[in-house]
Every structure is written in C-alpha cells, then in structure tokens.
C-alpha cells in the first residue's frame, strides 16, 4: 500500500517545524508535502506551476490547511478544491489559530471536513496533531480516486 500523503499548507515556518516535529513525535512517518502559500497548494493539487506534470492520481489523504495564507488564502483554496471534480472529495482539515466564529462558519459552509484550533500549549498541540494524524490517516477511509479525466 502506498504511503498516504499529507499536504500541509502553512506559511509560518515555526508552525511548520512544530507540526512536523509533532508528526515525528507521534510516530507519523508519512510523506508530508509542504506548501508555503495558497498558490503553491493549488499548484500541487492541480499539477500546475512548480508541480506541473505531477501524477494527478496521487492525492493527499488529508490536507491540513491554514486560513491566513499569502497570495491565495485558505478559504479560496478550499473553494477551488471543492469546485473541481478532481479534488472535490478530498478531506480538508482547517488548522488555524483563529477561533473567530466567522471563520468557522465560512470554512464549514465551503465544505471543510474539520476545524482545528491550534493550541498555544506545546503539549496540547502535540496531542492534537497525534490525534489528527491517527484519525485521518488510520481510522478514516479516504475517498476513492476519481476516474481519470
């Protein structure tokens, strides 16, 4: 079985490192694709730009999406993902600092599967990532690959 891929869309280098560290601590050794902003995320998901030519049959088992991103923000990425037949079923977990009600409403209404608020506390953060990874990579059944276009 191919290793499930995690797409981590995070602009903050600290948070990126902490998240990767947490994965490591939790024993999650899957491939993690990093996207530094919304544009890069879309490039990967649609095999464009720097990821042009990528095999579109291979999709992340889960996308961890921050909301505040440069170039293209998280909600726009979510919208585009849900709008395209190739990606509309992909599990997307919003991983963000914001607890703003508006953000939650927007996210859920655009089709986010889950909304996680990043705790400041390191311990709690690790626990969250571990549980996240466990759930989406092990327990959850990812959607089947869409038929080739």
């Amino acid at each position, binding site marked *: 079985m191919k290793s499930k891929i995690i797409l981590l869309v995070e602009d*903050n280098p*600290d*948070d990126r490192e*902490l998240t990767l*560290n947490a994965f490591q601590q939790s024993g999650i050794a899957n491939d993690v694709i990093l996207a530094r902003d919304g544009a890069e995320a879309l490039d990967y998901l649609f095999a464009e730009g720097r990821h042009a030519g990528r095999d579109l049959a291979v999709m992340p088992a889960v996308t961890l999406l921050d*909301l*505040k991103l440069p170039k293209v923000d998280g909600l726009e990425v979510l919208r585009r993902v849900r709008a395209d037949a190739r990606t509309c079923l992909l599990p997307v977990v919003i991983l*963000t*600092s*914001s*607890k*703003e009600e508006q953000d939650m409403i927007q996210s859920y209404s655009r089709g986010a599967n889950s909304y996680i608020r*990043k*705790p*400041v*506390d*390191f*311990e709690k*953060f690790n626990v969250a990532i571990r549980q996240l990874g466990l759930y989406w990579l092990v327990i959850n059944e990812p959607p089947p690959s869409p038929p080739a276009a």
Partner: protein
Amino acid sequence: MKPSVLIVDDSLTVRMDLKEAFEAAGFETHTSATVAAARRAGQEKNFDLVILDVLLPDGDGLGLLQELKAAPPTAHVPVLLLSSEHEVRDRVRGLKTGADDYVGKPYDTAQIVARAREFVHRGRPRERPLIVVIDDSPTFAAELRAALETAGYDAAVGATGEEGLRLAADLRPAALLVDQMLPGLDGVEVIRRVRADAALRRTPCVLLTASEARVDELRALEAGADMFAQKNAGAAVALAKLTALLRTAREGTGATAPASLLAPKRILAVDDSATFLGELCDQLRGEGYDVVAARSGAEAIELLGSQPVDGILLDLLMPEMSVQEACRRIKAEPAWRDIPLIILTALDESAAMIEGINAGADDYIAKSADFEILKARLRAQLRRRQFEDENREIREQLHYREMEAVEMQALRELSETRAALIADLEEKNAALARTNEELHRAKTAADTANQELESFSYSVSHDLRAPLRAIDGFSQMLLKQCGAQLDDKSRHYFDRVREGTQRMGQLIDDMLALARVTRTELRFERIDLTALARAIVAELRAGAPEREAEIAIADGLTAHGDRGLLRILLENLLGNAWKFTVKAAAARIEFARHAAALDGGVAFVVRDNGAGFDMQYAGKLFGVFQRLHAAEEFPGTGIGLATVARVVRRHRGRVWAESAPDRGAAFYFTLATPTFPP
C-alpha cells in the same frame, strides 16, 4: 362745475366790470340791477355767491340780504355787501344783518374776486369730498378717477403740475393725489409749492410713484407729502392710503384754516382827524389793503366786534377814549389780542407813546414820517403775525409728522424683528442640518472604526498567538533536547517561560472576548437563563470532575437579551464562583432572581461562599486588568469582570457586588426588560 355768482348793482359799469372779472376767474355770472330782478334770479337758480349793493333803486339791499339769510335754501349762500358808504356804522349794520363780508367802494376787483373765491369754497358744502388727481398718464388717471368715484369721492384731474396747482387753488380739494413723474414741474415740486401756499398748505398730499427706492420716499416726505404710494400696487392701495390720510386729517388738530396769501389784508385805521384818516386809507388801499375806518376808539371796538381785521392803526390822541384804554381793551380780548396794533404818534408825545406800548401796542409810527415808512412797518408787523401763525402751523405739522414717524418706526422695527426672527430660524435650521450632517459623518466614522477594529481583532487572533506557540513549542523541544543536562533551576526557568506564554495566550483570548462584546450586533430574544447556567456548570464540572460543590440554579430564570453575550456573562460569573470556591470546604454556588428589581428591570444574583474580596477595593472590581487577588492564589487575567460589566451595559442594566474576605461574594446584575428599547 363752475361756481355761480349773482351780481346785484344798479350801476351798469360796476355790473360789467365785475361780470368780466368773475367770468375770467371761471365763474358763471348773472347780473341784476334791482332787488326784484335779483329775487327772480334767486328763485330760478341756486347761486354759490351773491355780490350785493346796499343802495338799490327799488329797495334796500340789506332787506334782500335779510330775506336771503332767512330762507333755508339760501341761508348758507355767502353774501358780499358792496357799498359806497364807508361809514363804520353802515358797515357794522350790514355785517350784523348777516353779510359775510363788506367791501367798500371804490373796490379792488381782484380783491373781490379773490374774496369771493374764498367764500365759495369755504361755503359750498360738498356732498362728496373732492380729490384732485395730478397725473400725466390718461389711463392711470382714469383708473384713479373710477376708483375714487366708486369710493364716494369726486375727482378732478390735471395733466401737468401747473394745471394741478391751479385746480387745487380754485377747487380747494380735500386731498391731492400727485404723480411723481410729470412733465414740467415734477410731483415733489408740486407738493413743495402746495406746502408753501398758506391756503393749500394743509391739504393732505399723497405722492404716487413707480419707484421703490427708499430715498425717493424720504425725498417725498421731506418735500411735504403726507404719504407715499406705489403706482404698481394699484389704484386700490392709493385709495386706501388716501382714505386713511383724510380720516386723520379730519380728526386733526382742529385749528382754523388760515387766510390765503391771496386774500387781501384788512386794516382798521382809527384816527379822529378825517383828513389824515382819508389820506391814510387811500394810501393803504393803494397798497392793496382793505381798509376800514373808524373815528374813535369806541367805534373801533364796535367794528372789531363784527368783523375780524388783520392789523390796527391807532391814533394816539383821540377823544373819549385814551389810547392806553383802547389798547388795553383791544388786547384784553382773546380774539383780538394777536392782531398787530400800531400806534400813530406825533413826535412830541413820546411819553404817551411809551405808555401805549406798555399797554400792549406792538409798535409805533411817527405820523409826520413818510407814509412809505408807515406802510413798511405795517407790512413788517403783518408779516410777523403771518410768521407766528405759520410757526404754529409748522409746529403742529411737525408734531403730526413725529407721531407718524414714530408709528412708522415702530412698524419698521416690527418687520425688522420679524425678519430677524425668520433669519434666526433659518440659521437654526441650517445649523440643525449641519449637525445632522456631522452626526451622519460621525456615524460613518464610527462604522469605519468598527470595521477596522473587526479586521484588527481578526489579525490579532491569528498573528499574536502564532509566535506564542513557537515560544512554547521550541522551549519545550529545547527542554527535551538537553533536559538531562539541566539542573532544577534551569528547568524551573523553562517552566516560567511556559507559564508566560500560557498566560499571554489567555490574555489574548480574554481581550478578544471583551472586544467582541462591544462589537457584536445584539440580537435580542427571550433567553432561558436557567438552562444556560446549567450547561455552563456542566462544562465546569467536566473540567474538574474531582471537585465537589453544591450548585443551586433557580428554576424559570429568563431574560430578554443577546444569547451569545449572556453566555459570556454567566461563564464569567459562574466561572469566577467556581474558581474562588476551590479552597472552600463545602463550596456552595447559587444563581437566582434577586428580590429588589430596580428601575423596572429584572435583577439576578450569583452567590458563592468562596474567598470573597475586600469591599474597599470594590471600585476596581470591574476595571480592565484589575485583580484583587494574587496570581499565585487564584489565576486570572483581570478581564472577566470587565467583560461582565460591558455585557450588562449593553443590556442597559447595572452590575454591583457585595463581599467580605473569606465570606464569599454576591454579584448582582440587572438586564433590560422586553419593553425597554435595546
């Protein structure tokens, strides 16, 4: 309508002479040579005036006079007696019989005509008051005439200033309506001349003008116009002003009309010397005076009683009555007191002359002096009298004008006040509009600020927490990395770092919550506070399941408010109660309705038996970042109660607390009622 005169004299030359003179003056004339003819003429026609010779072939003129005065239809007709008799006695008799005047022959034709005119106009009773209109525009003149006649006046129209003045002099109208713009003499000049003539002086004048300039009005009033009317306001307005003017003129000062300058002055000459008297009379008549001669003081006084004179020449030495006596008696009479009285004296009688002046004479003239000097002095005295009369006139006019001016001033001030009031109101309106605009701008600014705050809070909630996470995360990783090498103190330092970050995170969350309370748009609905409180308590218990605490939530607590904000309120109050009872042996928390409901609002209380606080610091209770306990004792950011206070304020309520250290605390709050507008 021409005035008509009946001339009764047996002398053909007199009849012809007078007829010619009167016709030239615009009279309709009839002549009769006898009493019988005169009687017949009188029966056929009503005359405005009769000139009657005393000595007639078939009768006594005085008899006819009596007849005329006795019969009602002719009683009012003025009769001028014409006679060659210049005996005082005859004159007195004639006047006493009822003649209106007595002219001695030889007469001055012009004088008779002038005197006749005076009588005609004074005597003729007008059923309708006559108004003279002076206007060169035929259309407007016709309009005015029509309006006047409808209003009950008679109108005579002159097309030029000169014609108008002639009409006025002849007809002696009740008032003049003068157009400002006239060919030749303009309206202002006409009025000036009217005012200059003694006879017409008191005629009310209205100046009509098309101009609206104030300066013209002032000119007109200064020239002597009584009123000023706009032509374009129409004939009706001019008429209304005229009526008002005539009304006030009638109710006026009531002084008697003065004699016109045209009227000849009558002098009473008193001297016992017939020759001197005759010469004096001739001289005076030659000057145009009407002279009445008397031979003694007694005769003079008798004459004065029956006919008024304009001046008295009195000889110093006379029989029977001394000159002092004569003077005294004349000056004693109020009616004769003001008549200039001049004593004629011979040079060597100065003492008596002085006495005469002391007795009241106005002046003296030496007999032997030139007649020219005598006449000049007489003229001067008469002029003085004239001036005094005019002065009185002017003073009366002035008074009248002053009253008018005061009235106009009052009216002007009233309209000015009204205008000022209106201007003030308009200004207030404008200010109000400006204030409205400012309010609108302020609201827009506030809305903008709110929006900015929104995005600011949003940024804060993201951007401030991320670094905290980094600090905590990496410090932990550091700890793990070199934990073995660290001693207790170092480990302790790391813990302090962690605590700092935790605390900051909490602060940020609390501040965001506080800001959200202010920003949020309220949605008022009926909230079940009991259910809300119970849910919060369940969460608290779930967070610390080991704790035992008695929590009593009263049933049926409801309020009218915003669900989100009220949740925050109860979270804070119940959370505080939960926190501060952690050390209590048997913790007890209560949430119930409070007995005293102030201001018609509903009051609640959250009570606990925990740590409590010192009431002397109660003022700081609801301040931001204010804590009344040490952080080691009880954690907290000092924002919770500030948030509670803000929620309560947005619900138009009040919050207050009572406590004592270690005796627990009670927090009371009120919320708006459904009837209270949010």
